């Protein structure tokens, strides 16, 4: 049985025929749509490496069935920067040495973008750690990650006032 879905990924429309209804969003991205930037660390919702934004909300793409994504707007790590210009969260990750091997990094960054959008962490490092706790980094770059998320959050808050658009919506990147 083949199932057809239509979804927007990083602003591009994709029509996909799923020949296996069990395929996850993560495998769809990585194996079918040539978007391997999103990583697989556990395939069970326990590490956060596969985090993407679906309609602006962060989710573990290894736990989402591709079949349930009909009509969704998805942002992955590949769609975050505007050409050469890095997204503020990405730039903050460089500035704060927030990774070593870089394997957890796409998930960390997408999770941070989602978190800043949620607006729940404010300027509190403990809250940031708590709300980023679904993303494991075995290289242990938590210190840098926390600082990077705080800085990007501060910048987003500053920019949110005078400007009309929110620089942290995944859609902007499309």
């Amino acid at each position, binding site marked *: 049985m083949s199932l057809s879905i239509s979804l927007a990924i990083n602003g591009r429309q994709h029509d996909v025929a799923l020949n296996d209804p069990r395929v996850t969003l993560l495998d769809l991205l990585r194996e079918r749509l040539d978007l391997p930037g999103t990583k697989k660390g556990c395939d069970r919702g326990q590490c956060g490496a596969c985090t993407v934004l679906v309609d602006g909300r962060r989710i573990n793409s290894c736990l989402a069935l591709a079949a349930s994504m009909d009509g969704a707007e998805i942002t992955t790590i590949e769609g975050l920067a505007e050409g050469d210009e890095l997204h503020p969260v990405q730039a903050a990750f460089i500035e704060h040495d927030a990774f070593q091997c870089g394997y957890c990094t*796409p998930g960390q960054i997408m999770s941070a973008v989602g978190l800043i959008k949620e607006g729940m962490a404010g300027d509190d490092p403990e809250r940031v750690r*708590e709300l980023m*706790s679904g993303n494991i980094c*075995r*290289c242990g770059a938590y210190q840098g990650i926390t600082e990077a998320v705080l800085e990007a959050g501060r910048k987003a808050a500053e920019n949110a006032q005078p400007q009309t658009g929110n620089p942290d919506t995944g859609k902007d990147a499309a």
Partner: protein
Amino acid sequence: MAIAEVEKQGVGVSMLRKEDDRLLRGRGQFVGDVRLAGMKDVAFVRSPIAHARVKGVHPPEDLRSQVVTAADLEGVKPIRAVSGLAGFKPSDQPVLAFEKVRQVGELLAMCVADTRAAAEDIAARVELDLEELPAVHDMIAARDKDAPLLHEDWGDNVFLETFVDVNIEAAFDAPIKITREIKTARQSMAPMEGRGTVAYWDKRMEQLVLISGSQMPHIVRTGLAECLGLGQHQVRIVSPDVGGGFGYKGILLPEDICLGWYAMRCGHPVRWIEDRREHLTAGANCREHHYVITAYADRDGKLRGIDCEATVDSGAYSSYPFSACLEAAQVASILPGPYDFPSYRCRTWSVATNKCPILPYRGVARTGVCYALELVLDAVAREAGLEPHEVRLKNLVQPDQMPFDNITRKHFDSGDYPEALQRAIEAIDVKAIRERQKRGEENGRLIGVGHSIYCEQGAHGTSVYSGWGIPMVPGHEQATARMTPDGGLELRVGVHSHGQSMETTLPQIAHEILGIDISKIKLVHGDTEYTPYSTGSWGSRCAVMAGGAVAAASRDVASRARKIGAHLLQVHVDDVELVGGRVKGPSGSVSLEEIAHTWYRLPQNLPDDVDPRGLEGTVGHKPKRDTGTFSYAAHAAVVAVDPENGDIEILDYVIVEDGGKLINPMVVDGQIYGGLAQGIGTALYEEMNFDSSGQPLASTFADYLLPGPTEVPAPRLDHMETVSPYTEFGVKGIGEGGAIAPPAAIGNAVNDALKDLGAELVRTPMTPRRVLEAIFAATNADSQDHSDRGGRT
């Protein structure tokens, strides 16, 4: 201007990393990201039983061509990692098991299909006929006379027993004698990216190409070629971006050999990407040690001697290249730590059990050794009524003794251990903690302060490893430096980065010597085809060995560039110097760009006697002494222990480290933070348990707990800088150190918190249940001997 650039980019500068951009954009290429036309997926059939006779492996008839069993692998040799140490018993690790399986997860068949899911469907249909044997799951019981045997021809289950005795009798009359039985849990390295391999046969090059996240591609090539009976020129190993290794990616896997064998015959690429369950249950085990350790001391805390029996659970096979005895043999030589005492005895056993082979994990044996020794030193302090740091200060090797040959003939190159400890004690403010302890906590929690100190041998070379006689002995480390026609530089090294930032730090070294802007220096690594032979990235050796080689190769190119530059300036070579990327004479200068342009594109302008090797050089490097650098650190922790529920919270953490000259301090900080995170995992969370039938009990991250951002506090770092007298720039290896000391520092802090209850915890991880058990044991069985606490389970 040029000078300013040198200051911004050379050795000692916290430069932002060159590798960051692609990783941040999701453009890194890890092995799972490789896409090749026609590539098929592999799933393995693995043993569900820890110890069994293999009576039969039956692929489904209709899918026979998609299944490989041991019977198919004619001529393929087993993995055999021997050690030259006297009495070592080698094991043959079959690529696919046939007579026996000796661990859960051992490979029995390989299934190939268009997708992993389809391959797993085939694997599920392969019928196994296994006759279960009693399993060996406890390393102490494994040494019993009547224990079942893993390798029947051995007669026992001991890979290797070692013994060293330096006048231990002289310590026996010491007034203080403290004995503890101490255990560290079996762990998994758990890099976020597991192992993975893509294999294909390159028809034009007549070469088997294996793309595999590896810390040591050249060693994998050597081992793989030997198992498959190929010439080494017929094998190429490509290690792309590597998502963390920590030791796990430093080995040759049977999976690699299986895929290689298949790729040579099937006409299309195949890939296997380890899933998390495979990783946790079948692939990566480390750290499981058992100590019975006695400290002899005088009343003033001066150590008279250490006596120890140490056992390491080495698992079923000796893995390639480090062998099954790496940990236990190291225990005997590094147990004395940074201390100076006159008597020592240590007996060690590397024991075979029905678990997956033990592999070196960041810090290797040091984490366990540091935990055992530092715990027993704190017990000595309690017995003597002294502050633990007072006992340590009495026994640490003093700076004026450096360089120092210790009781096991380790040669400490340089350092001021007491200073590091004192700084840590001051920073954590032991006095204030003692006051706070007196006042007590309103919420009933118990506060404790603890510390630990270690020194870490890194970049040890030929003289150390030749004695072990394992399949890999590091010699000279080589690097190639090659100027490009536009004045840029390529560096080629055989080590490989799995997060260490080498694409930044090694160019910083070349920049220091040549002055070429770092954006124009490219590191080529992770490919046996393009890089000089190397034992790879392990043993905290890359900064010292590859860094030294890059410096030597850069100097080689610099000297030839100077000669060409002098000729272009029409002056004698003795009258020029290379500064900031320009060769400067008494009245004028010429850039490296112009020099490179001349060598490659205007050779008519070169002097007649120009060195024909041009602007390219491969140079080998060894430090002046190859016995290793000794970086060191003192860690100090304050914890709050809740005696009601056993919870441990880290309130403060201080690290004072000395890694000699740091190439990039920011990168070193990152390594220390990361090591600390892993050390906290060892101390409080991570445990790979097996039941009595040898079944692994943790198969997901819900059972195997990794520390997350809320578990790892922000430590306070303090740096000292004592250069090594033997290395380029005085650098020392420091990549592993952060993971060594935390279990000991936290363990001592916990025991400090529990001391008024008379409780003591001597096992990792220090879980709430174990805390409560220790308290319960102390309050309910006051007469119980200490050594029973945290004893065998």
